[in-house]
């Protein structure tokens, strides 16, 4: 008998444990869903279906993630501010603009600071040019991602274009002059009788003609 009862007791205990576990999970699920529902409001205000149901837990080792970040502010995604920051060179020693540096090199402490300066000036109602001027006054011309096209800098902007234009003009002029000269020579040659006039054209081509012909045929092929 004991051999029979024992499994019965065990079975009832298992059932009870199972039911208890089920109720516990249901309560936990409701709780998580409520909490997650409270977090489901996106920064844009769009209500999204919940994908991650966990609470905002703490990381096991926060030291391996780098510098702690501050939550995104309103000005961080402002298109006008972004465009201004793309014209300002980060002063940390990298080759990036402020926007790219602060959204790429997350260990940089300079670009967030420069960003705050831009936002502060922007909030004062300053225009893009006034903000850039303020940065130049404070950090020097090097703070611009590209120099202003004025004074000596104009040489930098214009020289390649001028060089290419002059090169193209000279090329066109030289080729054009040669073409005209050649055309004049051909006209003059057409007016004078050929040296072999009276004898009739030679039936045998000269080596020079054959060479020219070979080249011409090769050109036709390619």
């Amino acid at each position, binding site marked *: 008998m004991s051999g029979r009862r024992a499994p019965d007791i065990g079975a009832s205990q298992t059932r009870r444990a199972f039911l208890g576990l089920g109720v516990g999970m249901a309560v936990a699920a409701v709780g998580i869903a409520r909490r997650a529902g409270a977090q489901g409001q996106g920064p844009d205000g769009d209500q999204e279906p919940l994908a991650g149901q966990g609470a905002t837990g703490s990381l096991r080792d926060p030291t391996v993630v*780098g510098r702690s970040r501050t939550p995104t502010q309103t000005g961080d995604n402002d298109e006008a501010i972004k465009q201004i920051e793309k014209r300002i060179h980060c002063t940390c020693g990298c080759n990036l603009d402020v926007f790219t540096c602060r959204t790429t090199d997350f260990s940089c402490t300079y670009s967030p600071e420069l960003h705050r300066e831009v936002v502060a000036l922007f909030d004062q109602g300053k225009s893009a040019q006034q903000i850039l001027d303020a940065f130049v006054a404070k950090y020097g011309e090097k703070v611009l991602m590209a120099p202003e096209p004025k004074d000596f800098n104009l040489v930098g902007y214009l020289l390649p274009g001028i060089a290419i234009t002059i090169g193209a003009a000279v090329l066109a002029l030289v080729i054009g002059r040669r*073409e005209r000269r050649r055309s004049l020579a051909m006209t003059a040659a057409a007016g004078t009788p050929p040296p072999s006039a009276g004898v009739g054209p030679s*039936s045998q081509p000269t080596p020079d003609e054959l060479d*020219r012909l070979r080249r011409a045929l090769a050109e036709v092929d390619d």
Partner: protein
Amino acid sequence: MTLLGNFSLWAAVLVGLWCAVIGLSGRWRDRPDLAATVTRSTYALFVCLAAASLALWRGLVSHDFNIEYVAAYTSRNLPPYYVVSAFWAGQKGSLLFWAVVLSLFGTLAQALTPRRYADLLPYVAAVTSSVVVFFVSVMLFSANPFERLPFTPPDGRGLNPQLQNVGMVIHPPMLYLGYISITVPFAFAAAALLSRKLDTGWIHAIRKWTLVSWLFLSIGITLGMWWAYVELGWGGYWAWDPVENASLLPWLTMTAFLHSVMIQEKRRMLKRWNLGLIVGTFLLSIFGTFITRSGVISSVHSFTQSNVGYFFLAFLVIAGTFGFTLLYTRWPLLDAESQLDSVASREAAFLFNNLLLVGIAFSVLWGTLFPILSELVRGSKITVGPPFFNRVNVPLGLLLLGLTGVGPLIAWRKASTANLKRQFRWPALAGLITLAILLAAGMRDLYPITALALAGFVAGTVVQEFQRGARARMRMHQESLPLALTRLIVRNRRRYGGYIVHVGILIYCVAFTGMAFKQEREATLKPGQSVQLRSPFGHTYTFTHLGVSQFESLNRIVTAGTVELRKDGKPAGIITSEKRQHVDSFKRPTFEPSTEVGIRSGLQEDVYVVLAGVVNGTEEAVYRFNLNPLVWWVWFGGAVLVFGGLVIMWPGGGPVIRTRRSVQPGYAATLAGAAAEAE
């Protein structure tokens, strides 16, 4: 191992010096045995440097941290393939890599060049050996990879996390192979000048080498863009960084050479220009190395600042003086054998194309050096970044794109008006239709719209060329369209391979315009929170932060931010971006935490997710989300370009064409008579 390495380097210097001195002196001219010794010494040079390379690799693989280079670039827990790639990851190792590959190329040039160019080969051996001697000397006197430390650290520092990427395993060697192989055409050019054998022989001898250089540079640049895109995390692939510019410079001049050399082959013109281009390309490859290694201009890609820059600067001056003096002294021997007939000719189009390519190279070089010049002239420092390069180079690039379409449409020598009309009609229409479609679609941005319309024109050109060629074959040989197209390419690889390369360039240009429309935003999200971005193609992407997890993997501790992606409301998968803290075998941090980007690539746009960090050690994560249009097409364009290059390079095909070209005497005489009458 360091003993073997140092001994091999010294032996290489001695062998190389002997080869260079005897080769350049010309004393081998009447002595075939001496000439053979000079050319064979390149093999000995390669053996010396291969031994040195094996010694360094042995040190790397056996974790001999008493060698400074091994301790600086590897650690015990570094994955084996990165241990192997550490050979070229640092300044010293990459110098050895350069030297050994150049000695290999020098050997191959000797072994593979047909015997009819035997008179040039000792000079070629002398020039390649001189360059190898320079690199080995830099190692011996300034950056020795076999330098030992006074103590043996228990573990090495490990490889920079940004170099722990498959792109970085392949990209630098490819770029180096491009840079290094330029030395061989330069050596042949110098040999032609030294020997005064200035016919087209040297050009035929280097044809494959110039293509090899160009191809490796193309692969290296494309892989470099890919590496920057997936590893640096700023969301783009080209930033006009000085080192990027340095890789572009020889590519531009080599591309110019590949076009202008056709004119020399066909018309015996532009001899001086072509020699100048080869010398210039070689100098630019050394200049690129100087920029990367000197620290004279700051760059994200450069090696640690060291005094090797002075060596390179001196070498640049010496090589430039040698090359241009040689060219100047042979100037009278380089007269053109024919003249340009018309502005409306393919030769003229190629000349303008050369002008633009060299002009863009000048513009890039000018922009790269302008900060130094400005500081010298005005005493004030300035920055020359992407806005400058875009403003100056984009219009030039558009002109070049247009010429890519114009060149193949114009006949050699002189095109008639009727010919021009017939050739330009359909491609121009294709360009105009593209323009009309873009305008109707509401696009108003000047540069992208111009680029896309020109791309339509160039595509029209290429399609027309293939269509006409295939139709002619179908008519003459009764072939099906696929067969006709295949045989068209196979029988004339240079021409149609070139058109495939043009298609690659065209795809590049279209893909580049995509970045003008990229979308980006930063967001701080707690688990379950979402943010949306709308793409230029009209799709709405929803990013939902799922959570942050931490785990150990290989040689790093990973913090992974996971995002659920929805495209137009439908699930589109999971994207993970990581922060990686690399550690040595004692679990000590080795570098600052690096970022691993999460990318979902598509034909229309890439979804690009960057985990910027977390707020106060919690799962609240700061992300940057990007939608980068048409990026996939950049890589595809690169693949098409390389495929076109391989088609051109593929051996064979020549004899068939040459047989066809052979002129029957009777027919030739008839045609010659007709030609004479026409003139």
